[in-house]
Structure formats: structure tokens, C-alpha cells
């Protein structure tokens, strides 16, 4: 990626990052649509021998030989038996029955996590710069489990199975499906086995935001990653005939519009179908849009397809406007015709002009790449939101990372829009999603693993979470683009990842497989359900009291029964206690606790308020007491608990929910 290494502070702090030897011992496995091995992001110049522990392979298949792997791309496998069992044999004229990535998504995610350094990267000149993965010295292993018809759980499990056996250190999965109990969710089950082997599993949170309870991949042994923006934009201004200008974004490259105002029409007025406003295939009347700019509403069909529909119907340009579902979030696309995307309020203003002026005109001015956009990051509207629908006492997402307009490697088999009619081929593409934020965290986890080989997956996640930030340098709270208001821990989890601070977190919250088994006991799982997840006989101790609240998680989610607690202002309080254990991974020191709460309805106290740590590895426990007054059902309040020795700040978000 370009820009994100700087945005995350990696470029400015290169001296703090692990040396080449240790960094190149770390292996990132990516379960996705495969890999385009010819991408310069997988150039192995300067890499030494493949780690001796590696047991993976470079599997052969359609247009893929063993020679496609090298010292950077050290493994490539494909898993299609489950897919073929359901949908029939793969049509090799349409997709490669091999690790080759015909889609682009897998090449994008794997190069984001651990791509080599590539100078002169850009998409049509946009986002130009030196591209690299978050862990450029780490090795990559690609596991193709997703095909044209989707990603099947039998194939995903087979991919995880092999990745564990092969010896990856980090597993990156930018996919998800449904919301199932952990013992029914193949990604959760496979990830448990990986975690037990010391593999950090990073998964995307999903793109179902800003709706509440929209997260996927919420098992506590998975690191769940939401998406935020960068400080980069691709402005393309809509200039109307009435003299007003409006901001939009675009990645269009090609012949610009004529240097004069052009007629602009609303798609809903030039179609004979009820949903003509959406610019769906075959819905626009060519006689009414020829030579004009068409204003289309976002929704239902892909954004870039709308541009293609306008172009094929004779339109000369497109303005794509968000509706209430997307608000003001702008996602840039490499459209096939001059086009720009605008927010809902801008779209409404343009519509008002188009509807009121007898001869409305417009033009689009493409302004290239702009950096230094503030505020940034902001939480992406599409990023899935908590609360956690499976176990509300575990706060998810864990963290956010860059996931909007990310440039990274791309497949040579498909154009940047992914449309069949897009004959362009690019080495890098700019796309958005929690799929893009997940591999950022995967690569950063690889960096931490290289710097601290003895750290467990839970410790690595803790370091990333407790050092994350949720306010800007000026002290203002991080924004949510969906609302324009401050985001909450249900939107950003612990906050935005800060990898340089994560290298030296001071204290961490560790978790062992046994802790997760106790967690499953607290969920009242049957022994069969626990065995399905943990692959071993485990019986919960009937004499022992298990509590979800005591899982040593780096964040706090307090759930209060609104029926049990008093109604607002009427008297008695609910008291909830959580216990945590901190482990020192830094110098000796005394840490003091501080708490904040957004509401008088939630009082937070920590006991003890001071913890002294001697040598590295020393542990200390504390108890947090949440005293909560009555609030109506579905209310939420938030807070934060911090431990600091003056140099390190070990922060944990708090969410309180009345259910």
C-alpha cells in the first residue's frame, strides 16, 4: 500500500522496527482468492532461504507452476473440492483451478499484509508512491479458498487445516458469513486450533455497518478488525450550471469531459422502470441520456456497474449520489466513464437543481490525489458495528485500521472495476472494505511477532489494542462518518491501530487456550460443543463458578439487564465486577489507574489503583467494579480504563449496555 505506512508512523520510525533476519522468519498465511505471483509485491530480491520450519508447498494447477513461488511467496495452495462438490466442476475458462488469483482480492490483501517494497506504484497516477505491505520482510503463503461462486466452509476449513500444518505465524482472513454460535462457525473453530498453535488470526469485521449488531468473526480468540479512512482523498468536483461546486471523489482516468457545461439528467427521470434511479442494466432510455451527464442513486447494483450502464446507454458522464444508507461516506472508483461519487446531502442539492432548472448543466473536474485530509482517521460507514451478537460481554470489533481507498497489488486477469467489460489491466488497484483493514492488522501482527517472537497471539492483540487511539492529536474524539459524531467502542473497538506504540506496550493482557475453554464453560456449552471447538475432551468443573466477565480480554463490555436494574432515577444500582491480570513486558515500574465514563449512570472503580511490576513477565491482577443505575433497555454508555507509568499508557475501552 502507499500512504498507510506513513499514516501509521512506520516510515518515520523505521529504526524501531525489527531487523531483516527476524522479520523474514515470520510467515503470513492469507486465505482468500489466491495470488497473482507476477505482482512486484512478491519480488523476493534480498530474501534469504525459506525458514527451515516451513512445511508448505507451491501447488500446481491452471497457469500455475512450482516456479511461481519464490523466497517471498513461499507457499500457494488451492482448495476447491467443497466448491466443486456443490456447484460442479470449475469452469477453467473462467477461473483458474490453481492458486492463481483471477479476482484481485487475494492479491490485494496479501500484498497489503506483507508485500515487498515497490517504488512507482499507482493506479492511473492516483495514490502514487512507494507501495509496501505492513510487514515487507515477512513471507507470504496464499491459500485460495474463495471462487467465483463464493467461499465454502469445507474449503475454508481445509485451508486453515493446511496453513496450521504448514507453519504460518499469522493467518489473515478477509471473509465472513452469518452470525453463528462458535461451535457452528467453521472460521471460529478453525481459528481456535490456529490460536492453540500460537498463530494470530486476524479477520475482517464485515461491511454491514452502520447497523448495530452487524459484526462477523466475533470469537474472542479472533482479532476482529473494522475499517477507518486515511488522510487521503481523490477529489472530483461537480460544477453546476448555477455556479455552485460540490465535492466528490473519483479514480477515473481517461478523456476528460469537454470543457463546457453539459446537460445533466436524473436517472429516475430518464427511465421507464420504477427503480430507474439506480442505473441498473437496461433501465436507462438511450434517447434521453445521449451526450448527457446522468445522476444515479447508489444501491443494489455495484457502483462501477452503474457507470458502465450509463456509458453503454450513451451517457457521457455520471454523478453517483449516496442515499441515506451511506450518508456522506465517499468511496472512490475507477469508473469506465468520467464519473464522481458524492454524499447524500450533495446529491440532494444537485437533484434540487436538476429538478428546478429547465436546462440544468454540469461538468466534473478531476483533481487527482490529495493528502493531509482532516480529520483522519474516521470510522467508515460500512464498517460493521457492535454490540457482539453472539457474546455481548466481549466487546467487538477489537480495533480499526485503514480500509478506505487502499492501493495494493492486483491481479493481471481482471480490470480495476472487476467488470467483464473492463479491458484495462493494472498492477495496483484502489478498493475499500474491512477486507482491506484486516490484512493491515495481520501484517502489523507479523511485525510484532518478529520483534517479540515469544509473544502469544493474545499478547500481540493486547499490544495492538491497548496502544490504539480513539481521539485526534487535538484531543477531539474520533469521528464516525456515518453520523458525523464521535464514534464509540461499538464502532472502533479499542481505537485505531498505532503499531509503533504497540511495539512497546508496557503491560499486556495474556490469554491461554485454557482461558478460552473456561470462557466456553461460562457460556454453558455442552461438553460435545466444547469438544467440537477445542478438539479435546474437556469437562467444565461443576464446582467452579465460570464468568464471561473474567476472560482476560483487553476491553470491557458490561451487560446489565434493564428489567433487573431500577428504572431511571428510581434508586437501586446494579454492581458488576470484572477481573483482569496484567503482565509486564517492559521495564519495572509502578502503574496507576485512571477511569473515565461518559455518564453519571456508570461509575467505574478499580482495585487496587496502583500496581508495581518488577521484572518482565511479572503479573498483577485487579478488579473493576461497575456500579450502574437503571436505564431503559437498549441504552449504551461508554468509558475507558487506563494504566500508566508515565511512559506507557495501557488503555481499555468500556461499553455498558442495558438489554
Amino acid at each position, binding site marked *: 500500500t502507499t500512504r498507510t505506512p506513513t499514516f501509521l508512523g512506520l516510515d518515520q520510525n523505521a529504526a524501531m522496527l525489527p531487523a531483516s533476519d527476524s522479520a523474514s522468519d515470520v510467515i503470513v498465511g492469507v486465505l*482468500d*482468492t489466491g495470488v497473482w505471483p507476477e505482482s512486484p509485491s512478491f519480488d523476493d530480491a534480498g530474501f534469504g532461504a525459506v525458514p527451515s520450519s516451513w512445511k508448505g508447498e507451491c501447488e500446481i494447477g491452471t497457469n500455475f507452476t512450482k516456479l511461481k513461488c519464490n523466497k517471498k511467496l513461499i507457499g500457494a495452495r488451492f*482448495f476447491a*473440492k*467443497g466448491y466443486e*462438490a*456443490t456447484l460442479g466442476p470449475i469452469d477453467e475458462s473462467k477461473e483458474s483451478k490453481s492458486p492463481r488469483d483471477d479476482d484481485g*482480492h487475494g492479491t490485494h490483501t496479501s500484498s497489503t499484509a506483507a508485500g515487498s517494497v515497490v517504488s512507482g506504484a499507482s493506479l492511473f497516477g492516483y495514490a502514487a508512491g512507494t507501495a509496501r505491505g505492513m510487514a515487507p520482510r515477512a513471507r507470504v503463503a496464499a491459500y485460495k479458498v*474463495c471462487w467465483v461462486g*463464493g*467461499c*465454502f*466452509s*469445507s474449503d*475454508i*476449513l*481445509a485451508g*486453515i*487445516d493446511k496453513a*496450521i*500444518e504448514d507453519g504460518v505465524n499469522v493467518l489473515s482472513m*478477509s*471473509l*465472513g*458469513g*452469518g452470525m*453463528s454460535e462458535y*461451535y*457452528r*462457525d*467453521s*472460521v471460529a*473453530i*478453525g481459528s481456535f*486450533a*490456529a490460536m492453540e*498453535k500460537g498463530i494470530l488470526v486476524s479477520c*475482517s*469485521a*464485515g*461491511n454491514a455497518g452502520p447497523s448495530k449488531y452487524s459484526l462477523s468473526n466475533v470469537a474472542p480468540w479472533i482479532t476482529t478488525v473494522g475499517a477507518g479512512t486515511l488522510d487521503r482523498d481523490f477529489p472530483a468536483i461537480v460544477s453546476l450550471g448555477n455556479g455552485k461546486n460540490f465535492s466528490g471523489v473519483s479514480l477515473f482516468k481517461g478523456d476528460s469531459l469537454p470543457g463546457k457545461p453539459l446537460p445533466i439528467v436524473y436517472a429516475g427521470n430518464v427511465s421507464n422502470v420504477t427503480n430507474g434511479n439506480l442505473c441498473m442494466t437496461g433501465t436507462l432510455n438511450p434517447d434521453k441520456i445521449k451526450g448527457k451527464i446522468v445522476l444515479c442513486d447508489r444501491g443494489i447494483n455495484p457502483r462501477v456497474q452503474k457507470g458502465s450502464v450509463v456509458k453503454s446507454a450513451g451517457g457521457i458522464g455520471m454523478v453517483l449520489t449516496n442515499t441515506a444508507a451511506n450518508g456522506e461516506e465517499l468511496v472512490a472508483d475507477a469508473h469506465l466513464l468520467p464519473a464522481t461519487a458524492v454524499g447524500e446531502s450533495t446529491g440532494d442539492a444537485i437533484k434540487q437543481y436538476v429538478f428546478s432548472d429547465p436546462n440544468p448543466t454540469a461538468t466534473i473536474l478531476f483533481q487527482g490525489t490529495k493528502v493531509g485530509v482532516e480529520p483522519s482517521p474516521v470510522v467508515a460507514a460500512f464498517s460493521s458495528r457492535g454490540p457482539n451478537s453472539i457474546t455481548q460481554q466481549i466487546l467487538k470489533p477489537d480495533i480499526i485500521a485503514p480500509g478506505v481507498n487502499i492501493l495494493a497489488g492486483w491481479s493481471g486477469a481482471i480490470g480495476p472495476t472487476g467488470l467483464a467489460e473492463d479491458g484495462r489491466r493494472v498492477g495496483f488497484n484502489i478498493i475499500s*472494505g*474491512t*477486507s482491506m483493514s*484486516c490484512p493491515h492488522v495481520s501484517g502489523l501482527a507479523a511485525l510484532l511477532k518478529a520483534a517479540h517472537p515469544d509473544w502469544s497471539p493474545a499478547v500481540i492483540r493486547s499490544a495492538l489494542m491497548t496502544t490504539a487511539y480513539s481521539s485526534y492529536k487535538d484531543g477531539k474524539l474520533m469521528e464516525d462518518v456515518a453520523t458525523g459524531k464521535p464514534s464509540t467502542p461499538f464502532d472502533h473497538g479499542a481505537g485505531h491501530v498505532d503499531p509503533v506504540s504497540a511495539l512497546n506496550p508496557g503491560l499486556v493482557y495474556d490469554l491461554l487456550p485454557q482461558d478460552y475453554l473456561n470462557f466456553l464453560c461460562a457460556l454453558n456449552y455442552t461438553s*460435545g*460443543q466444547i*469438544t*467440537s471447538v477445542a*478438539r*479435546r*475432551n474437556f469437562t467444565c468443573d461443576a464446582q467452579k463458578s465460570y464468568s464471561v466477565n473474567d476472560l482476560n480480554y483487553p476491553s470491557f463490555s458490561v451487560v446489565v439487564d434493564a428489567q433487573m436494574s431500577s428504572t431511571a432515577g428510581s434508586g437501586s444500582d446494579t454492581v458488576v465486577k470484572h477481573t483482569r491480570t496484567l503482565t509486564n513486558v517492559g521495564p519495572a515500574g509502578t502503574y496507576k489507574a485512571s477511569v473515565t465514563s461518559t455518564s453519571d449512570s456508570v461509575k467505574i472503580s478499580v482495585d487496587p489503583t496502583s500496581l508495581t511490576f518488577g521484572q518482565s513477565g511479572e503479573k498483577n491482577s485487579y478488579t473493576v467494579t461497575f456500579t450502574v443505575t437503571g436505564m431503559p433497555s437498549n441504552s449504551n454508555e461508554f468509558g475507558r480504563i487506563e494504566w500508566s507509568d508515565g511512559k506507557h499508557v495501557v488503555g481499555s475501552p468500556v461499553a455498558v449496555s442495558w438489554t
Partner: protein
Amino acid sequence: AEEGKRTYIVHMAKSAKPAEFEEHRGWYDASLKSVSETAEIIYSYETAIHGFSARLTAAEAEAIESTPGTLSVLPEMRYELH
């Protein structure tokens, strides 16, 4: 024969493997054959889970669920890229 079949992931209790089977794969095969003469293992899993995947009818899936050593039989799920 494929009509009415779908893919299931069969979770097995590793420790329940009868001694007569040297390898788990042989036990999985025998379990599958006990409910279906035609079904074949798609994948045999070693590390992510203990068990296998296979195409089964709903009745066969129900039958294998009650076979000794079977923990659960989960229908295939389709995931999507984010």
C-alpha cells in the same frame, strides 16, 4: 443420486476412535460407509478440526450424528469476501 444431498462437516471426537482403526481416516471412512454406500469423503481434517466433510442426504446426516464418536454434523456454509 446427488439430488437432495448437501455438504456436511462432520466433527468427530478424536479420542473415541476404536482401536481397530490405525488411522483416523479409516475410522471416518467406516463411519461414513455405515450410513451411505455411495458417499465419499471430500476432505479429512487433521488440525483445524477432527473430522471430515462429505455430501449426504438429510437422513444420512441425521444417521451419522448418532454414530459413536460423532460430535456434530454441520451443514456447509457459504462465506463471502469483505
